[in-house]
């Protein structure tokens, strides 16, 4: 069994920037034929730069100007021979273009169309214009991160990648539903709600205790030790978590303080929290003379969850990822082979996935217009001249 899970499916991808392309990257690497549609008239803002090369791995890329009515007709022809249509334009744009669900389902009654937007396509704020980074503030997601005495956190590229994965998940569920019931689906997806759904602890805490959860840095309400500790070197840290008494005893041995492990006053996390400063100091005394990766190895060998706090360049060099085969040597569109990311899952047998470099705009026009739609050479030249294929 060598087929990838989604082989035989065709997806028309009108989405751009990050969230939508992330979704179709998952689908393309798992075997679907993803046809990204774009136009030189209004290029995907993410086209410049390396991230585009990751977000658009394994896809086909056709140029089509859907601001022209002939372009819309061609898009409809493509959609009519496809299984899924994905878009993430601002509210109302796809309808104005003439590619609403009501329109596209006429030619393809079983199409699955997914429309992703910042706040969803119903409700009083449906027309709000959004970027993923701002939605992290709007949805409460950022409110539980940071330090209580400081302004909200400033960083964290989270919303778009998170939403991208959930989009791929719900598209796959709708595809299963189509096998079970024979029917397609229109899916209205709210990025904001996707983020709020991922903070249930704070939502329940508020209702249970009338408490607006304060951000708490690296600490945890129920576990201690639970934090990062300074290591040898500049801005080097190791994260350590103790889940139970056995791990606590082992940690005390590693940091050369078995006396703390023997102390009956420090058996539970709640009791240990009363001596937070002393315990953190004792741990730091050991970590600050140890390299972060060495600290991880020593602690993990002793059965204590631990790992270094890495920047992206050190993630790129991480040995688990390197030796575990996470990076794939992929030929980029400039002809250079580069180590590019793959997926967070493996199938125990069969192919791992379809991993090819990101395309350039119009690279697959020939396949799309000649092979799929059966247009003649003359028709294609005409469309190029009219800036429809553009």
């Amino acid at each position: 069994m060598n087929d990838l899970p989604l082989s035989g499916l065709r997806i028309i991808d009108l989405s751009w920037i990050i969230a939508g392309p992330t979704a179709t990257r998952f689908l393309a690497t798992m075997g679907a034929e993803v046809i990204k549609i774009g136009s030189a008239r209004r290029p995907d803002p993410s086209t410049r730069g390396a991230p585009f090369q990751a977000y658009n791995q394994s896809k086909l890329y056709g140029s089509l100007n859907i601001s022209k009515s002939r372009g819309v007709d061609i898009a409809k022809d493509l959609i009519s021979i496809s299984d899924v249509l994905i878009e993430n334009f601002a509210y109302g744009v796809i309808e104005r273009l003439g590619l609403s669900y009501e329109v596209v389902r006429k030619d393809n009654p079983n199409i699955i169309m997914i429309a992703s937007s910042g706040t969803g396509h119903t409700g009083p704020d449906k027309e709000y214009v959004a970027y993923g980074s701002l939605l992290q503030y709007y949805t409460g997601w950022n409110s539980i991160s940071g330090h209580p005495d400081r302004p909200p956190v400033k960083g964290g590229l989270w919303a778009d990648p998170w939403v991208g994965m959930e989009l791929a998940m719900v598209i796959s569920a709708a595809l299963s539903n189509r096998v079970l019931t024979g029917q397609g689906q229109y899916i209205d997806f709210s990025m904001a709600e996707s983020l709020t759904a991922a903070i249930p602890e704070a939502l329940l805490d508020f209702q249970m205790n009338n408490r607006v959860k304060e951000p708490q840095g690296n600490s945890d309400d129920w576990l201690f030790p639970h934090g990062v500790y300074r290591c040898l070197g500049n801005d080097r840290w190791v994260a350590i978590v103790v889940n139970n008494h056995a791990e606590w005893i082992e940690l005390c041995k590693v940091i050369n303080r078995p006396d703390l492990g023997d102390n009956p006053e420090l058996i539970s996390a709640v009791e240990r929290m009363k001596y937070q400063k002393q315990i953190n100091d004792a741990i730091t005394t050991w970590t600050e003379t140890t390299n972060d990766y060495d600290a991880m190895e020593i602690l993990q060998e002793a059965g204590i969850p631990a790992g270094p706090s890495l920047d992206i360049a050190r993630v790129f060099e991480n040995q688990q990822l390197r030796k575990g085969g996470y990076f794939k040597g992929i030929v980029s569109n400039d002809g250079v082979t580069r180590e590019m990311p793959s997926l967070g899952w493996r199938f125990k047998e069969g192919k791992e996935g379809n991993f090819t470099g990101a395309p350039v705009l119009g690279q697959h026009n020939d396949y799309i217009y000649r092979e799929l739609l059966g247009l003649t050479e003359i028709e294609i030249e005409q469309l190029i001249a009219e800036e429809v294929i553009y």
Partner: protein
Amino acid sequence: MIRGLLPGIRVLELDQGISGPYCGKIFAQMGAEVIKVEPIEGDYSRGMGPFPNDIPHPEKSGLYLALNCNKFGVTIDLSTTSGIQQLMDMVPTVDIMIANFLPGSMISLDPDRIRDCNPEIILTSITPFGNWGPYAEYKGSDLILYHMSSHAHGLLGPVDQPNSDPPIRAGGHQSDFVAGMAAATASMMALYRKLVTKHGCHIEISSYESMVTQLISGLANCSYGKPAPPRSLSALQEAATGGMVAAIGGILPCNDGYVAISPREQAQWERWVDILGSPEWSDEKRFKTREDREANSPELWELMSNWSRNHSKNDIANWGQQKRIPCFPVNTVLDLFHNTHLNERGFFTELNHPIAGVYNYPGVPYSLSHCPLPLDARPAPLLGEHNQLLLKSIN
């Protein structure tokens, strides 16, 4: 009448904590029949907060209640042969089984025994680092995975003193949720194939690689030779991209909190200046173009803050959105429950749990034209609630 997105699909969940149960919850929300198997003492997440009045109670964990809505719950002692038999009796009837088979986990069976018993089954195993590579045996946790995947490095934003102000994780359990969503995504894809071809499979999810895959943009930058963004404020200001973060978007202080804005394109910026009342400084050369604003962002943000401090976060957000500028109030969970937009969309689902009581739970972020959700929403199961209904009795 067919109900739900996954009618007739059965899922057996033998995992504890967050990521496995979150994967199961996603199936349950879509109308699959999810049977959660707990050890006799219950899923350990029943001991994780929040709890009413902060008093732990196995039927009142907010985390457990949120992660296990819509599931059936049974308890099985898998250390006994009769317990294994109870489990194996169910295996032929299910499409998907979520279990990680790690030593010390709920089930130490050989996964092939499950697959022999049901060749079409999809096995979904979530482990911290995957069943491969040098860290295969290592333990993980939400905190550690968040830091090891470099998300912590960027979250706080640049700081003055990187050696005393460490990177931090996001609130909640974002790494565990990512692993659960990755498991659900791969399982959904495998389910599609199973429905078409009758092929089962065993999917192994690495929580770490799933978290790393959330930052493929950064990894692509690395593979094109770019250095990691610095964490120290001074290094960032020295870098060529100095003000990029601030000029592209950021937060402004208000008289009742903060507002997040991002008038990054020139046209957006010009409309934004209108809202500010076209102050004299906005005509200055140093703020003319996007590049100028990036180069002079600290001064720019100070000037805008002087204005924003006189207004409320909702006023500024509304003024901005009326001019189609991406801007939003910085909300807390309190604001969310008063949010008319979320309420009108019916995002929260009220469920009455027989012991914990009535709470509103976050729903799904998608609505489907042909499958209204949520379906017959039920609260999380009591410990062993469905033993009689679903388990063959032990003789």
